[in-house]
């Protein structure tokens, strides 16, 4: 994927970006894939029509940005296939899970396996991956084994609640240590492509809430619809990390970022969000904006903020005096943490 990113970079630097198809470049970078067209997308995970949809590998990383989260862990590979009609979307997600954990009405200490697909409206940048932002809501399809699937909406941490959209239908199969879950519903957001992200919970590990694995935003191209080219071009620009990764790493050391953020191989510190998998869960544009303007969006944990004596809340992170090239290099380094 990184060489493909390099390709994108080369195309951009050659001034070919305007001429090139942003969608094609995003597809090649692995940050976008296509849903196959089907008049009636199936609910059954073993339906033969699923072979029409090309598989996309999404990596779901342990959520470590905000507590409660997962302390450690490796990314979990999730295979996604999508089939869409003009009005409906079916997403099939397959991932490894050694145990099949159902919601139990006869237990108080167990949690079910679960999966969610998070959507947002395509704009020129994407909202914060974790539950969106106040002015940029996210919606989601949420399935738990043994419960009715739900349609939920969130405008930031702690705001998740029932949405006005219709709940999807769901059908699931657990076979030999793998879940296959199909979620089928009316297209939750207009505009093409559709930004989505996935999250999975392992009930056996008492996973619920932020104790989950999640992917970064991914774009799903819907068939038989025009694409929003301007937003795509902007997002392509945001997806690119053209800097010098090695130099970015040196800058991280130089600026003492590890004093507040946990970094791979670094000490456990929690004054700021964990960056061990920063590249795995964030669209590079988010990393860039966080560095350039730390208070633009503050991950909403009390200790990340400084609200004393100011008109508005400030991030505890200082706004460093950086040259554009420094920011490029930092983003390149952070985007490589995956």
């Amino acid at each position: 994927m990184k060489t493909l990113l390099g390709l994108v970079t080369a195309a951009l630097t050659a001034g070919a970006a305007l001429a090139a198809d942003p969608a094609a470049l995003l597809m090649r970078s692995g940050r976008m894939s296509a849903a196959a067209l089907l008049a009636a997308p199936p609910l059954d995970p073993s339906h033969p029509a699923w072979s029409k949809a090309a598989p996309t590998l999404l990596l779901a990383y342990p959520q470590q940005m905000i507590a409660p989260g997962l302390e450690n862990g490796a990314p979990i590979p999730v295979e996604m296939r999508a089939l869409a009609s003009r009005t409906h979307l079916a997403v099939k997600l397959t991932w490894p899970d050694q145990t099949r954990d159902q919601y139990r009405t006869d237990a108080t200490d167990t949690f079910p396996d679960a999966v969610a697909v998070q959507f947002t409206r395509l704009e020129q940048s994407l909202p914060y991956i974790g539950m969106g932002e106040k002015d940029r809501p996210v919606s989601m399809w949420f399935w738990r084994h043994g419960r009715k699937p739900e349609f939920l909406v969130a405008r930031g941490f702690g705001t998740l609640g029932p949405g006005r959209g219709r709940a999807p239908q769901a059908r699931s199969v657990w076979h030999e240590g793998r879940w296959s879950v199909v979620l089928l519903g009316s297209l939750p957001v207009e505009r093409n492509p559709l930004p989505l992200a996935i999250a999975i919970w392992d009930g056996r590990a008492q996973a619920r809430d932020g104790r989950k694995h999640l992917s970064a935003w991914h774009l799903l191209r819907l068939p038989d619809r025009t694409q929003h080219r301007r937003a795509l071009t902007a997002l392509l620009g945001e997806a690119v990390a053209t800097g010098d990764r090695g130099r970015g790493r040196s800058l991280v050391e130089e600026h003492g970022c590890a004093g507040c953020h946990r970094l791979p191989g670094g000490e456990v510190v929690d004054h700021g969000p964990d960056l061990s998998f920063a590249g795995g869960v964030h669209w590079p544009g988010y990393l860039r904006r966080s560095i350039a303007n730390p208070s633009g969006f503050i991950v909403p944990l009390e200790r990340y903020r400084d609200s004393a004596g100011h008109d508005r809340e400030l991030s505890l992170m200082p706004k460093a005096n950086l040259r554009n090239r420094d920011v490029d290099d930092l983003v390149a380094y952070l985007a490589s943490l995956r």
Partner: protein
Amino acid sequence: MSRQLAMVIDLNKCIGCQTCTLACKSQWTDRGGREFMYWNHVETQPGRGYPRDWEQAGGGWDGEALRPGRLPRLKEDYGIPVDFNYDQALFQQGDTPLRPTLPMEWGPNWDEDQGAGEYPNGFYFYLPRLCNHCTRPACLAACPRHAIYKREEDGIVLIDQEQCRGYRYCIAACPYKKIYFNPTAGRSEKCIFCYPRVEKGVPQACAFQCVGRARHVAYRDDREGAVYKLVELWKVALPLRPDFGTQPNVFYVPPLSPPSFDSEGRRTDTARIPADYLEHLFGPEVHAALTRLEKEIAVKQGGGESETIDLLIAYRHGDMFRLSRPREERP
């Protein structure tokens, strides 16, 4: 928070009749997945309590940090509320005895009256427990959705049922294990300090129905109220496990002991309930509280006046509850 409603339970008057338990259950928890829950219960101490071994289940504060806790299990720690074969035993011919339809292995009050100590020095006492509506609630701090709130007007701690999504961090965080997950509803629930009654000036069901007149209810800042007098002024009522750090607003008048007997059967000066055990439950203040209590009892027994003992006797039921209503409307 402007005011805090609080309760004092006199353990020397609790007879373990569970009238409070049933008053609560029939009012709030006899349906809808709450059948196993006892927002108020009375357990025998020493004992494993309800839910089983709650004292060892973690939670509460460790300085400024929440201590980790575990979730009680329905079958093993709470006990499944089993059905009985009423139809077969009572309405069918034959000699089938009345029995549970499932084997019972644990339930609330399972170790009732077992206590500790060897004859003739066995001892136990009853400990009614409910949500402590803490001043520093660990449950509230643990909820990532801010679904738990403490009411400004009376300090009652409630779970917003619209906001709760059943994550159960609150249950792990409560060191008293007084929040329950309702698996039917998929949300956590707890004692609501009978707020709909309190708002109408009616005392909590558990307190009002107590046949032993063991429960006093008042606002902590009400200097005429029993809570202020017993807790702040006379210092004979103490919180349970103050070391958990949550600052409970349910207080207990600690249990007095009969004396121990020596191997010859003679009375000794040693109290039957070990002092370190009482200190474990009620903190180091318990010794002074018991001394004060014994002194007041001696005064009263000697024909003298003791405001403390008169209040604890509770000659008039209505005097036990001060919910800021005009005097003539009080029960």
